[in-house]
């Protein structure tokens, strides 16, 4: 059963390869392939989640025992994110039918497969490959909206991401040259002796900056506003909601397993703080909804980076809670942006025409600024109690910046909310196509319902996340799980 987990990566790939061929012969059959594959993936993962024995396990691909071969490391955290990937892939599936459909859906399947790979893979270079696959399929999907601005946004993103991958590759080369292995567990074993030095740190920072491009790390996040403003909202939701979190997950894993240097966390903390400041301030002045969301997403990711920089398992808990919360909220908000589209000015008085959407916006905004008892509050509570407990004054700055950012966030979000509830609707004609409008509103309602469910279940959820965090933080467990048999003789 466990072995079948690999299907969640293999089947979407297979589907992506075959989709254009099948679509050519039978469109009716073709449109179902993607959703069926992703649904099956969800089913596999959910099954594993429900019937698994909670113990992490490792799958050797190709039957080569790690560290020689590549393995998938499956613990609760990986499962959670893999499940989220497949589910969000299903939710944000590009249904729209036109001549580009086969390619778009194939790219989406590739995106989901590679994102799942990012969540599961236990090999550094394999992570890089999946990361690049995420990048390339993302480029294609952004450009698929085929406006000129989208092309420019894509090429700028591509260039930035290209430098990022050069740096990542460089970091991997450094690590390989130093240790002679790429397996994360093996590296974790060797790290205290071999990577706990300048070289290891330099390699980590190179990888951090490289992977940070997708995790919206300051300052390599300049692509964010333009891409989210030009790409299809469903794609933006997937990128902001999920892909950024997966990149964050990689950084977290590397930090937990391999790079324990305090300098590494300091860099992350500083960049996180700068990200919060820049993102939230920039969002304050934004005039259209997508860009506001893009900037606010930068700010939120900055907050998560601050959480990543926290050392112990409550830090991991904060990362998980904030990530999942942000995943839910940002996806929902982007769906609302899809529903309304365009400038904030057009939203004046919109509550009278679409009360549900306006209500959802208020709900999301409240949770985002952390109003108790919505889940956002608990995520933030975990973060700030943990921040306040640190001795390094830098963390205190982080705390203050975080609080300040929340005030700014509340002010710009509720400026929009207040605008929506103003009594006189303007006569500006809103230009949203009716079909995408209702679909995205339904999707947004789904996320709203999820948020409310999470509010009700916050206590068991908290316990569950706590267990996940403890497990994710256990380096020895990771090493033992992956390297069950003794290592093959090196030299």
């Amino acid at each position: 059963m466990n072995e079948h987990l690999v299907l969640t990566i293999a089947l979407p790939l297979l589907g992506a390869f075959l989709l254009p061929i099948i679509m050519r012969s039978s469109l009716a059959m073709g449109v179902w392939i993607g959703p069926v594959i992703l649904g099956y993936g969800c089913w596999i993962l959910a099954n594993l989640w429900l019937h698994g024995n909670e113990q992490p396990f490792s799958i050797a691909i190709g039957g080569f025992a790690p560290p020689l071969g590549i393995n998938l490391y499956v613990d609760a955290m990986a499962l959670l994110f893999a499940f989220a990937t497949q589910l969000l892939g299903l939710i944000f599936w590009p249904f729209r039918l036109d001549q580009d459909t086969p390619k778009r859906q194939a790219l989406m399947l590739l995106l989901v497969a590679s994102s799942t790979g990012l969540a599961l893979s236990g090999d550094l270079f394999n992570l890089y490959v999946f990361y690049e696959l995420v990048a390339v399929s993302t480029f294609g999907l952004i450009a698929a909206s085929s406006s000129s601005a989208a092309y420019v946004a894509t090429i700028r993103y591509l260039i930035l991401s290209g430098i990022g991958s050069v740096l990542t590759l460089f970091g991997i080369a450094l690590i390989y040259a130093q240790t002679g292995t790429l397996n994360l567990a093996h590296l974790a074993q060797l790290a205290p002796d071999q990577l706990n030095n300048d070289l290891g740190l330099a390699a980590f920072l190179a990888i951090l900056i490289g992977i940070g491009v997708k995790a919206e790390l300051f300052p390599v996040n300049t692509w964010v506003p333009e891409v989210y403003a030009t790409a299809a909202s469903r794609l933006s939701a997937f990128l902001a909601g999920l892909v950024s979190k997966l990149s964050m997950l990689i950084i977290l894993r590397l930090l937990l397993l391999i790079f324990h240097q305090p300098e590494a966390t300091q860099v992350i903390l500083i960049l996180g703080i700068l990200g919060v400041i820049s993102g939230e301030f920039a969002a304050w002045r934004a005039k259209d909804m997508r860009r506001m969301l893009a900037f606010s997403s930068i700010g939120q990711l900055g907050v998560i980076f601050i959480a990543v920089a926290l050392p112990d398992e409550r830090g991991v808990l904060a990362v998980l809670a904030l990530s999942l919360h942000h995943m839910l909220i940002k996806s929902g908000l982007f769906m609302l942006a899809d529903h309304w589209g365009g400038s904030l000015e057009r939203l004046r008085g919109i509550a009278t025409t679409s009360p549900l959407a306006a209500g959802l916006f208020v709900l999301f905004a409240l949770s985002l600024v952390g109003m108790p008892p919505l889940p956002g509050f608990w995520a933030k509570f975990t973060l700030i109690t943990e921040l306040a407990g640190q001795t390094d004054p830098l963390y205190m700055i982080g705390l203050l910046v975080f609080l300040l950012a929340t005030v700014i966030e509340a002010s710009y979000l509720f400026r929009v909310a207040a605008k929506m509830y103003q009594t006189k609707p303007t006569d500006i004609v809103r230009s949203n196509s009716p079909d995408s409008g209702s679909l995205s509103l339904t999707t947004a309602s789904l996320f709203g319902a999820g948020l409310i469910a999470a509010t009700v279940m916050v206590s068991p959820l908290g316990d569950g996340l706590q267990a996940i965090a403890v497990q994710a933080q256990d380096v020895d467990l990771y090493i033992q799980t992956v390297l069950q048999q003794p290592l093959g003789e090196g030299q």
Partner: protein
Amino acid sequence: MIPGFTLELILYSTALGLVSIGLAGLVLSHHLFRIVLALVIAEAGANLMLVLAGYRWDAVAPILTTLGEQPQMVDPVPQAMVLTAIVIGVGIQALAVSILIRIRQRYHTLDRNEVAELMDAEIAATAGTARDVSQEAPLGERPIPPITDDAVQVRGGRS
């Protein structure tokens, strides 16, 4: 044989030099196609670095010739990785070039600044907002709305 130190320095310098040249090109060029080329150069440097990581003195290519005693062979793993990395690079470059073609068709320029300006204008136009990059434009709406003058006139004082 050249002493190890020198060769080492030369090889590393080459790899890092390629990366540096590429990065410098990325920053200095204004033409998007040249930027993509600079990216290619930088990638070559990183790939070279990867290969160097597995290089070994006095060793042969990792291909078995006899079943018995084997000569020293270089590390096969970086070679495999570099193969992968090169192909990835090719894919990305091809994609980049195809995007550039489209941009040139639409905007008739590939200057990075001009293109960025045009993109900004288009985003603003699509969203239906005025572009707010201008320093002269009035400030954004304040979260703490000022008491308007008419309200003051009607209601009299303020602190």
